[in-house]
Each structure stands twice: as structure tokens, then as C-alpha cells.
């Protein structure tokens, strides 16, 4: 049984590591500016954790294998050096890793969530609700109309609760069900939720952020490739959570301008 | 808090200390909730605390004093005289009076149209006072129970238990003073 267990641990370790290395299931190609740094951070962590994983699991297997002869008379051997070297090792090893990881990591984190937004960023207002995202472009006047919760009427297509009757800014607002952005142009989303907590997740952008009712949360990104990917909700928001999704279309500036004009015409 | 007969008297005391720790954490949670909730909340409406609260405070402190006086009377010879019992009963009575006072304070607020859900300030007021009141009722029950047990002479166990109850009772004072401070400053 002992040897079997040792073998099991070894096999499981090698197989599961193998699948990681083979990248049978791996991240989708990234299309954002922050993406590469996040990926490299992930890979570095993967290597570090992977080594620790293999080494410690195999150590376990080897130790078990070596003591598996229950019957044989054998003097009990203490671990050379006792606990102190292990403590030092763990503290040093993990400590160093912790330090480097969090140093590099915090830089990436800063670029993703804290770095100042370029002035030329395209502003898009996003509202999440059970169970769909809606996006709002300010239109020619460049200003968003004020949303009025009491005017929200999804059946009538007034998802933001705009009041075009009395609010001129609102009249030219362009409301869409998909998010289209020009490639290589910074985008600033102002995120708010109308009912419960939702989340904005685009794996290809390596980007995720919750919508919190009562808060307006800014989120900015820059897409680097023309692509069409999914935007999904990752915060449990009710029975339709699994189907709360829409599309992000990264277009050339020209296509984007055309798209926006078409949308405006349809309003 | 009735320690198992035969367990060291200190157990009851330790128990109360531990319990106090738990209660303190619960109220710490309420307080931090209040701080967060209050952060720039437009709907937060300050209101005057009912003045009867200060009377109640005095009553509660008085009951602690009475309780201590009672314990002193029992003293180390473990003799429970009339005076001791009188003081303990007084402590109990004052405790009840405090609760009645708190209820009057609630009626005062209700009279001003301030109910649990009227606005966050009133919500927290009711939550704080109700939570404290419930813990105090626990103390009252324990006190009443001790009063029954200290009819005549008491053993070290019972005396220790009485000490533990007293400790809890004083903690209720401290807790109340703390809450009063929080309410007076931040409400």
C-alpha cells in the first residue's frame, strides 16, 4: 500500500504537471496593452509554483517509498539539522518569492487599475442589470444625459432611464447592446449597476471588474488587435447569470465611426 | 453563567471574560458597520438622543454599585445576610428599571416619528440599544438565578459564580457607556 501510494503521488504529479506544460487548456490570446505583463507574471508564478509542486510532491513520494518497509528492523533517523533549517528555508524561499511577486505584481496592478487615464480616451457609459449589459455613447454633443432610475423601461427600450423629453443631452445619446471600440485607442468605461452586483470580464483583455450598485466605477483599457470577443458577468447576479453576456468588438477607427453612425441612425 | 458544580471557580470567570470578548467583537462589528454606512451618506439624519438615556445610565451604574455592595456583604465568610440579599435584589430591580427606561426612550423616538427604518441613524440607534438590551436580559436572568442560589450560606463555587455574574454585569455598564459615547458623538 505504501509503495502504491508513493507511485500514485508521483504519477498524479507528473501527469497533472504535464497537462499544464502542454498548455492543452490555456489562456486565450490577449488583445490588450496590460495583457502581456499579466501573462508573464502568471507564467513566472506558474513556474515557481510548479517547481515547488513537483519537488514537494515527489519528496513526499520518495520519503514514503523509503519508509515503506514496515517489517524491516531499522533505526529511526531524525531529520538532519532538525526544524531550524526548514524554517529558515521556507521563510527565505517563500519570503523572497513573496517579495518579488508582490513588487512586480503591484506595478502591473497599478497600470491596470490606478494609472491615470489618457485625455483622448473614448468614454463609454456601461450599465449592468439582470441580465444584460447596455452601453451608452455620448453622441455628437459629447455629454451623457442624466439617468433617472424611475424612468427605466426595458420593454420600451429605455434601459438607462433617460428623459429625452426634458433633457437635451439625453436626446443624442447612443445606447447599444454591444461594446464597440476603436483599436489602439484608450477606452474609459464608467460602470454602474441598476439592481445587484455584476461583473465585467473579458478574458482576452485580461480584465475584470465588479459593477456595484450605488457606485460609479471607472475602468480603462486599450485593445491592441481587431477582434470580436465575449464580455461575461462573473458575479453571481441571479437566475440569468449564466447567460449575462455580450460582445466586445474591436474595430479600426474607420469601421468604428461607421458603426457609431449606423447606431445613431437606428435610435 | 452557571459553572458545572465542582469545576474550579475560575472557570466561570474565564467564561465571562471569553464571552465578553465575543460580545465586544459583535459590537465592534456594529460600530464599524456604522462608520462605513455613515461615510458621506446623504440620507444620514442626525437626531437628538432622548435625554432619558442619561437617567438610565445612572440607574445602570447604580445597580452595579448595589451588586458590589451585596457581594461585599457576603464577603469571605460566605454568610448571606439580609443586607446582602437586599442589595442584590436592588441591583436586579435597578437592572429592570434600566430596561424600562430604554423602552421609554424608544417610545420617545417613535413619538418623533423615528422608527427602525426611518433613516440609518435611527436604524443604528435601535440596533445598538436592542442588542445591548438583549445581552443585559441575559445578565438579569443570571442575576435572578444567583439570587435564588444564595439564600443562606454559599460555597466558594457559588460565590465565584456570583463574582462572574457581577463581572458580566459591570461589563454591561462599560458596554453601555461605550455605546452611549458612540451614539452621542456620531449619530
Amino acid at each position, binding site marked *: 500500500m505504501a509503495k502504491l501510494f508513493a507511485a500514485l503521488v508521483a504519477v498524479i504529479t507528473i501527469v497533472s504537471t504535464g497537462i499544464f506544460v502542454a498548455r492543452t487548456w490555456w*489562456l486565450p490570446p490577449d488583445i490588450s496593452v496590460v495583457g502581456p505583463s499579466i501573462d508573464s507574471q502568471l507564467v513566472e508564478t506558474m513556474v515557481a509554483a510548479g517547481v515547488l509542486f513537483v519537488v514537494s*510532491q515527489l519528496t513526499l513520494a520518495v520519503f*514514503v517509498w523509503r519508509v515503506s518497509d514496515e517489517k524491516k528492523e531499522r533505526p529511526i533517523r531524525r531529520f538532519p539539522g532538525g526544524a531550524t533549517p526548514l524554517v529558515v528555508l521556507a521563510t527565505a524561499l517563500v*519570503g523572497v518569492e513573496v517579495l518579488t*511577486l508582490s513588487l512586480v505584481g503591484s506595478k502591473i496592478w497599478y497600470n491596470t487599475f490606478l494609472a491615470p487615464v489618457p485625455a483622448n480616451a473614448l468614454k463609454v457609459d456601461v450599465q449592468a442589470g*439582470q441580465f444584460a449589459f447596455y452601453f451608452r455613447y455620448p453622441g455628437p454633443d459629447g455629454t451623457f444625459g442624466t439617468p433617472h432610475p424611475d424612468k427605466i423601461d426595458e420593454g420600451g427600450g429605455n434601459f438607462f432611464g433617460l428623459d429625452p423629453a426634458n433633457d437635451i443631452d439625453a436626446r443624442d445619446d447612443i445606447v447599444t447592446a454591444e461594446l464597440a471600440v476603436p483599436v489602439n485607442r484608450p477606452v474609459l468605461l464608467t460602470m454602474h449597476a441598476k439592481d445587484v452586483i455584476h461583473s465585467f470580464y473579458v478574458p482576452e483583455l485580461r480584465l475584470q471588474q*465588479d459593477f456595484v450598485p450605488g457606485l460609479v466605477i471607472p475602468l480603462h483599457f486599450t485593445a491592441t488587435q481587431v477582434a470580436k470577443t465575449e464580455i461575461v458577468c462573473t458575479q453571481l447576479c441571479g437566475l440569468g447569470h449564466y447567460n449575462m453576456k455580450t460582445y466586445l468588438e474591436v474595430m479600426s477607427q474607420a469601421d468604428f465611426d461607421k458603426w457609431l453612425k449606423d447606431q445613431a441612425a437606428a435610435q | 453563567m452557571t459553572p458545572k*458544580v465542582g469545576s474550579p471557580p475560575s*472557570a466561570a470567570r474565564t467564561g465571562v471574560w471569553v464571552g465578553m470578548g465575543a460580545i465586544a467583537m459583535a459590537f465592534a462589528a456594529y460600530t464599524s458597520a456604522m462608520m462605513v454606512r455613515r461615510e458621506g451618506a446623504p440620507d444620514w439624519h442626525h437626531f437628538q438622543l432622548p435625554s432619558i438615556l442619561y437617567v438610565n445610565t445612572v440607574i445602570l451604574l447604580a445597580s452595579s454599585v448595589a451588586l458590589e455592595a451585596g457581594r461585599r456583604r457576603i464577603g469571605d465568610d460566605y454568610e448571606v445576610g439580609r443586607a446582602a440579599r437586599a442589595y442584590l435584589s436592588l441591583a436586579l430591580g435597578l437592572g429592570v428599571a434600566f430596561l424600562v427606561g430604554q423602552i421609554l426612550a424608544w417610545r420617545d423616538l417613535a413619538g418623533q416619528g423615528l422608527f427602525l427604518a426611518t433613516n440609518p441613524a435611527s436604524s443604528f440607534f435601535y440596533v445598538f440599544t436592542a442588542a445591548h438590551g438583549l445581552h443585559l436580559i441575559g445578565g438579569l436572568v443570571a442575576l435572578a438565578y444567583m439570587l435564588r442560589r444564595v439564600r443562606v450560606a454559599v460555597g466558594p463555587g457559588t460565590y465565584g459564580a456570583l463574582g462572574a455574574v457581577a463581572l458580566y454585569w459591570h461589563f454591561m455598564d462599560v458596554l453601555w457607556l461605550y455605546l452611549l459615547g458612540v451614539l452621542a458623538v456620531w449619530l
Partner: protein
Amino acid sequence: MTTVSTPPTVAHHHGPPTTFISKYVFSTDHKVIGKQYLGLALVAVTTGMVLSWYMRFHLAFPDAKAPGLGTITPEQYLQLMTMHGTIMVFFVLTTAPFAGFGNFFLPLHTGAEDMPFPHFNMMSFWVTLTAFLVLVAAFVVPEGPPLAGWTAYAPLSAVGSGSGPGEGTGQTLWAISIFIFCIGQLLGALNFICTVLDMRTKGLSLARLPYVTWAWFITSVIGLIAFSVLSSACVLLILDRVAGTSFFIPAGLVVNDRVLTHAGGSPLLWQHLFWFFGHPEVYIAILPGFGIISTILPAFARKPLLGPRVMIGCMAAIGFLSYTVWGHHMFLSGMNPTSAMGFSVPTLIITIPATIATLLWLGTLYGSKYRFTTAGLFCLGFISVFITGGLSGFFLAQPSIDTYLHATYFVVAHFHFVMAVAAIFGIFAGTYFWFPKMFGRMMNETLGKWHFALTFIGVYAVFMPMHYLGLAGNVRRYSSFPAEYMGQALPLHKWITIAALFTGAVQLIFLYNLIRSRFAGEQAPDNPWEATSLEWSTQSPPPWDNFGGRHLVVSHGPDEYGVQSPRGDYIMQTDPP
């Protein structure tokens, strides 16, 4: 705190309870209460596992009819998920390793005849049971149990039935149940702490307590703080739901075209309160496991644990740090991104004591004369799964990577390995180790070893692939994956489902072994494992007053193994100096 001499035998001054009720139902005997807790945990874990089967079944075969439920609807899936999580975390991972084994063995380990407040102890169980019944009552109310997940994020959990099926009565029952549960655990923790501090027998200094006793002590302290906070949070949530207050509900919410009257509340407040409890709760589930392994490993390795003080230090450090890391659940929640960095560092630091503990176990195993009993094997299994689960923490602890992996199956894999599987392995180890003492009969080793081997393979087959799903960006808590999304993940989901059903079925071996051994197992000697701690120096099972009224005197540490003595290669704590 100095040692206190045992109370006189008048402890049970009325003599043993005679009636069936006082003996088995409303018993104040910590041993009976311990068994009651374990029984509750067994019922709960079975329920929770069946629920997870339905979830897995639906994920692999979305259109197939599940027995008893028909085609599972999205809300049913979320309700199954919510109840699975709540039942497992609260009524299994908290009750079994902590309240269950703790109640039975803590007083035995301290040489006491019972806990200082037996009535509180009895209440603790019955209150917990009530909490369980209130929770499962949600299955029978109209619209069924809540669907907001075991974390019950506000405002979804606070705005009432409009936000979804089960968010009416079901969610209210959930909140009430958890509040009651907190009370039960607080009463228990109170007893544990007082027992350790005041009920230790002669010569039993704190340093001489077994590691598991230390673990229970530290866990009690953690629980005392965590459950107090959670109870407050539940009160506020209940008020938001039934009394129209606005602690967690902001202004101007529009649920189903209806504008809510609530105003000004903070959804993040709930998350802060919940995770301030929630993260320590993870350690409430796993620290007893640490203790059980540290206690059992030397018994089978026949050598003392490597670095005894260090191990206790690690557990204490983890307990303390667990209160500094709750924010790592909220990196992307909308709280100030700067604070994420602040929460990330302690989260990474907490891996240091965990790593040390693991190395100490490995070091103890090194060069030992290990006895590969079922309990011993589960200890080794624990080490393996704990390593696996711990390492995935490295990823999630970093905000920059969490931006990608958050809310994917990677997280599911992580917490199942480290919290569920590891903790369960600890419980199994404890069960196989202590069953003889609890019931006076041995468990069947052959069945046990089969159970271990298959379970070990099973858990890896179930949870390892979830890492791959996570890397591929597969979002958790989805009842199904619309064709365009995550198509390539479906084969993996099928595999996981089959593995899960298999692993679940394997547990029937354990169940059978448990029942069979209880009634037909061979008689157990007082000390079948040649272990040292106090529970092994009384009969199996122990008499109603634990030690037959003997005043134990302790003159040895908890793991004096591999030393020559009249007994053989070990010295029991009660042996003369």
C-alpha cells in the same frame, strides 16, 4: 495560566444519567455531544454531496433529465449551489473537525471529566441542529432555497423576492439559520477555551497539550471573533430584508422595473463584514486538520513531530494572520484598488507558516518507521492535497493575476483542495484514528485502505482539471455554457462529473465500514495505536466520567515516541516520570 488541579469527582455528582433522553438526546456529556455533532455532520455532508452531484450532472449533460428534478433550471442550479456551499462550509467543515472531534476529545486531552459549562455545551449542539433545520426548511418553502451563493452578496440577498426565485422566504431562512449557527458555535468555543485554560489536570502544562488540542484552542479563539462578527452582519441583513432598513441596499435600485424605496446602503459593507468572518472560517475548517495530522503523524511515524513549538507557532501565526487578509476576496469588488496591494502582502505571507508546517510533516516522515494504517495514509494524503491546494493560492493572492483568474474554476479548484478536500482528509484520518476510542471497536482496515486509495485518486481527478478550466477562463457559478462560450471546456466538465460521481460512490465504502464496524467490528483495546495522549489511558469507549474518577497526573509531553520504555518504543503522558 498555571495548571489547575482536576475538580473532585463530584463532577457528575448525580451519577451517570439513567433515562434514554438524558443519556443520548439532551445529554450534557461532551462525548455524546461530540457524537451528535459528528452525526449531524454526516447527514449534512451526504446532503451536500448529493446536491453537488446534481450540479455536476447538469453541467455535463445540460439537457438530460436529472432523477427527481427533471431538467434542471438555471435557478435550481444556483439553489443547489448555494445550499451545497452553505451546508458544506457551516455544517460539515465547521462541525465535524472542530465541534465534533473537539467536543469528544478536548476534555479527554486535558484530563477533565467534562467541559466547565455542560449545559451551554448541550445548547451549542441543539442550537446548531436548529440552524440546520431552519436552513433545509428552505427546500420546502414556495420558490425554494436562496440562489445568492453561500456568500449571500448584498443587494441580491437583501432586496427580496423580486431579484429571483428563492430570494424571498428562502433567503430569509438562510440568514436566520446562519445567525443561529453563530450562537451555537460561540457557546461551543466558550467551552473549549475555558476547558483548555481551567480544566487541565495535574502536571498538564499548556506545552504538554497535544497539537490537535492546541489547534482546537486556536480555532476556538478564531471562531469566537469570526462568528461574533458574522452574527452582527446577519442581524443587519435580516433587518434589511424584513424591516425595510438600508444597511446594504443603496438608493435608486431598479429591480424588475420597480424602483426600491431603500436608500444609502453599502453593498461592499456586507462583503467586508462577511469576509472578515469568511476568511478566518477557512482556517476554522483547516486548522483542526493541521492539529489532527500533527497529532496522528508521530503516532504512526513512531518518532516525535519535528519542531513541536514551531508547529504550534505556525498554527497561532496562521490564526492571527487570518484576520489581516479578508480583502483578498475583494480585489475586484470595487473597493479602492490601492488597498488590494495592502491585502495581497499578508495573504502571501500567510503561506510561510503553512509552508513551514508542511515541511515539518515531511521532516517527521523522513526516516521514520511509518505504520501505514488507514489513518496514517489519510495523513499522508492530507499533506499531498494540502500542498496542491496551497500552491494555487500563490496565484490568487496576487491582484494582478487575480484580475484574470478571479471567479473562474481556478478558484473553485483552489478552495476545494485546500479547504474541502484537505479538511475532509483530516476528518477521515481522525475518524479512522479515534473510532476505536469512541465506540470501542476497530474499523475494517482493508475497506479503509480501499476507501483511501480510491478517494485519493478521485479528488485529484475531480479538482485538478478545474485548474485547467480556470486557466482557459471558464467562469464559475454558471448553470450552463451557451454554445459559443467555453465550448472546448465541455469534455473536461464531463470528465469532472464522472469523476465526481465515482468519488461520491466510493464514500459508500466508508459509510458501510462505519456502520458495520460500529456494530460488528472487533473489540478495540484501550490503546490500539500505542499512542501517548490522555484519551488512550482510559477504556474504549471511555466511561461516563472519562477516567473512572481517577486523578490523572501528567509528567510527559504529547509525543514521546521512539524512546525505550517498559511499554516499548513510547511513553504515555500519564506514565510516571
